[in-house]
């Protein structure tokens, strides 16, 4: 799996291989998985997936900004953003990865 990123198509393929879901069911289920998480976040509801991590929502106040090209001052609007906090289990699994940067 070192080559290429994990995508929805690959997840569906693996559900077909591992659980025997048919390809259409597998594709639909992967789609629903991400859509239900988006719906929850869209309704300002935190998502807690134990063993993986939490998706939290943070409200940011309006703050002064600047167009970096022109230097013109433009306020950055108040906005709501999603943050991900990996769970202990995922952090522990990933920490051990000895990648090429070491």
């Amino acid at each position, binding site marked *: 799996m070192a080559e290429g*990123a994990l995508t929805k198509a690959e997840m569906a393929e693996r559900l077909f291989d591992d659980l025997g879901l048919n390809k259409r069911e597998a594709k639909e*289920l992967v789609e629903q*998985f991400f859509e239900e998480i988006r719906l929850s976040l869209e309704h300002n509801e935190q998502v807690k997936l134990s063993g993986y991590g939490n998706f939290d929502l943070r409200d940011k106040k309006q703050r002064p900004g600047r167009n970096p090209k022109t230097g013109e001052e433009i306020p950055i609007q108040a906005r709501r953003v*999603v943050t991900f906090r990996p769970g202990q289990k995922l952090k522990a699994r990933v920490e051990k990865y000895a990648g090429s940067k070491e």
Partner: protein
Amino acid sequence: MTKSELIDRIAGKQTQLSSKDVELAVKAILEYMSQSLESGGRIEIRGFGSFSLHYRVPRIGRNPKTGTPVALAGKYVPHFKPGKELRDRVNQSLSMEPQMTAS
């Protein structure tokens, strides 16, 4: 929303798969995602976001109780970057809410 609520919500909209199948599938998806990151891979879900690893350099930490310096090795931590659709939908929910207007 917890993992079991996620499973229930998906199962409630399913016409084909049993709750048990949905449960197995949700757990399998999370395991594929963990495995991918664990082996140094990325996860890219259009409209949702991407997960990757960020490197943390080795540093000298301190035992907060005793103040003794401790060498901490470099490590990788999971990182999530929300995609445009997720960012937009979450941000829109803010403008839909009734504003608390200060008089």
